[in-house]
């Protein structure tokens, strides 16, 4: 009892004065998607406590319930794994890759699958309680995407790796779909409450605050919807790229704090938008580098990272001005930072999990997957950056997709780290989930 009380007090202290104990029950921790862990991360690397192998890439981020780590895998399964031992408690099969992070509410787990369904499972047993079918999943696609040739050919985006992770609010499960809709489904019955049509794929994950659901679409708009009815309250228009569709779309999921929505965009910006009106407050221009990472917001600072430019930013939440020198992550970042005490954890596509000091940004430690250390196929150059000259031989046909697949061969971390009781849990493209102390 005293230990539990001490943990609560410690977590509150770590999360910032006046901040509540942050849940670890859905993507980015809670409905506001602040990305704050319930406990501090280790300040130095000690060991890998266990490795749990799945059958495919893990881009799903783990969530936590009573000593059990729950996550999806692109092998089509949802897993419950004992956090202490790494042994499987249960496994539930779906009909497609589970590239989303589960959400927990009461005794239920909700997750989306590439089979186009939202699953409701019993969190203790994995029993299917109900499924809700959307109009079907698909990746973002466009003609001549990213400059791929022939330019009149429609290509699926190989970097559209995530599915929308569900949010549970007021008895509804809210999530986006590749069919272009945002859905709200009754959490108890699985019946449709409302749905809202956007102009393209919705694979970002909705956040919630003050009665509004906020989520971006690949149509280039960030939408605020009434959580009760699904009625649009406002839409913020970000950049569009009619030529090669590269500088367009929200893959990043919003975080909401103090009446402001913070979200990254593929148009090369991190935006701060007023929650009530959708009016822009400020933005950070990343010079064309995607911001797929979902920002974390803690103690008046916004933490995020970029893709191609491989930069780690910490800016003032009120002004967007940098409060730390911009750091280098060496390689692309799609994963989202987790603020865990005085440490910020970030998964990088070079197969490294990087731990940085929250206040000054210096690298404290990093863990690298075996594939990253081995650097098979010379995926990484001597400077640790992607060996793009080798990986991307041509813009014709499927050559880019093949290059992206090889990139992930180093065990890219697309997922967001979960930190509980000083242990870090994260899945990798090498099909493993790691528990790191």
């Amino acid at each position, binding site marked *: 009892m005293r230990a539990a009380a001490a943990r609560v007090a410690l977590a509150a202290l770590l999360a910032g004065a006046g901040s509540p104990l942050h849940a670890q029950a859905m993507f980015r921790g809670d409905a506001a998607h602040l990305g704050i862990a319930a406990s501090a991360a280790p300040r130095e690397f000690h060991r890998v406590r266990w490795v749990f*192998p799945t*059958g*495919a890439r893990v881009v799903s981020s783990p969530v936590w319930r009573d000593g059990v780590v729950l996550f999806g*895998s692109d*092998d089509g399964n949802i897993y419950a794994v004992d956090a202490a031992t790494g042994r*499987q408690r249960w496994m539930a099969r779906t009909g497609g*890759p589970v590239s989303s992070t589960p959400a927990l509410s009461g005794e239920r787990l909700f997750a989306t699958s590439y089979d186009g369904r939202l699953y409701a499972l019993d969190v203790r047993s994995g029993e*299917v309680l109900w499924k809700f*079918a959307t109009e079907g999943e698909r990746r973002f696609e466009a003609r001549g995407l990213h400059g791929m040739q022939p330019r009149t050919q429609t290509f699926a985006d190989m970097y559209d790796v995530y599915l929308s992770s569900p949010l549970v609010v007021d008895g509804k499960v809210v999530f986006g779909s590749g069919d272009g809709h945002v859905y709200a489904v009754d959490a108890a019955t699985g019946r449709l409450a409302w749905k809202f049509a956007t102009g393209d794929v919705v694979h970002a994950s909705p956040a919630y605050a003050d009665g509004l659901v906020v989520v971006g679409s690949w149509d280039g708009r960030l939408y605020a919807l009434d959580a009760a009815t699904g009625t649009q309250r406002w839409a913020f228009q970000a950049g569009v790229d009619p030529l090669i569709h590269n500088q367009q779309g929200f893959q990043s999921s919003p975080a909401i704090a103090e009446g402001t929505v913070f979200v990254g965009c593929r148009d090369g910006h991190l935006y701060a938008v007023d929650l009530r009106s959708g009016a822009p407050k400020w933005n950070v221009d990343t010079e064309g580098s995607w911001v797929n990472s979902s920002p974390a917001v803690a103690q008046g600072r916004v933490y995020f990272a970029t893709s191609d430019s491989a930069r780690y930013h910490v800016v003032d939440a009120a002004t967007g001005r940098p409060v730390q020198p911009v750091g280098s992550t060496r390689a692309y970042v799609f994963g989202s930072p987790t603020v865990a005490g005085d440490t910020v954890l970030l998964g990088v596509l070079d197969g490294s999990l990087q731990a940085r000091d929250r206040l000054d940004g210096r690298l404290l430690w990093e863990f690298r997957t075996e594939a990253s250390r081995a650097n098979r196929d010379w995926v990484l150059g001597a400077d640790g950056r992607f060996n793009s000259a080798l990986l991307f031989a041509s813009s014709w046909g499927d050559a880019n997709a093949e290059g992206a697949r090889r990139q992930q061969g180093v065990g890219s971390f697309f997922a967001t780290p979960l930190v509980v009781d000083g242990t870090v849990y994260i899945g990798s493209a090498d*099909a493993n989930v790691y528990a790191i102390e």
Partner: protein
Amino acid sequence: MQAFVPWRWRALKCFLPALGLAAGSAGAAPELAGRWEGVADIPGWPLRLLVDLERDAHGQWTGSAILPGRGVKGAPLDGLAVDGCDVRFGLAAAFPGGGGATVPRVALACRADGVLAGSFMLGGLSTSIALRRSGAAQVDRPPANSVIDAALAGRWTGRYELGGVAREVTLTLANRGAAGGGGQLVIVGRRTTTLDVDQVTQGREFVTLRASAADFRIEGRLSAADGTIEGAVAQGPYEAPLVLRRQAAAGQEAS
């Protein structure tokens, strides 16, 4: 090249399994139960493989496989045979696109260094494989069939349309003793197909029925009060909505 084996060693090798010792092992037989991890050396495409082996409650060997990167977790080992330190199994479930001669087979034997090494055979080809013990076994067992209750047992009919062709469905379900629920599915479209429903999962409301030989699945929400199963049929990537309605047994009225 065939290795020369002196006759005395050959004779000894015959007795070792009977003594519970490992042929080919310099010392005691390694503990076969456990998680074994390694690579099959397919040229240019090394295949990562994790195999879990353990004895079940009846002392019989059982196992499952994980193929990271191929989307396979917990595939059962078919035809698993353990003879002393020799281990053989097939991986049909891990390679669903195969069949017949293309079902991969694995033959392993203990080496003196504790490695399980041997051959991985697929499509008439063979390559080396070596597995090292990496921990305790975590065998995935196939889910047991549910014992179905009165609300689900019985005869159900429905209709679905796929590819512009209407199909009438008659489903009959019952408990099959210790094997749990099962039944028969008759589909009448352009032709009549009869399938054995061999996998049944009945949850609190949600029901999944599978005819594994045809990869045919019916799933949906069971309403005992309405006498309906509202859901879908699916076969591979194809699916269609289906509502099944309970039919009265002979001499009974529909509820």
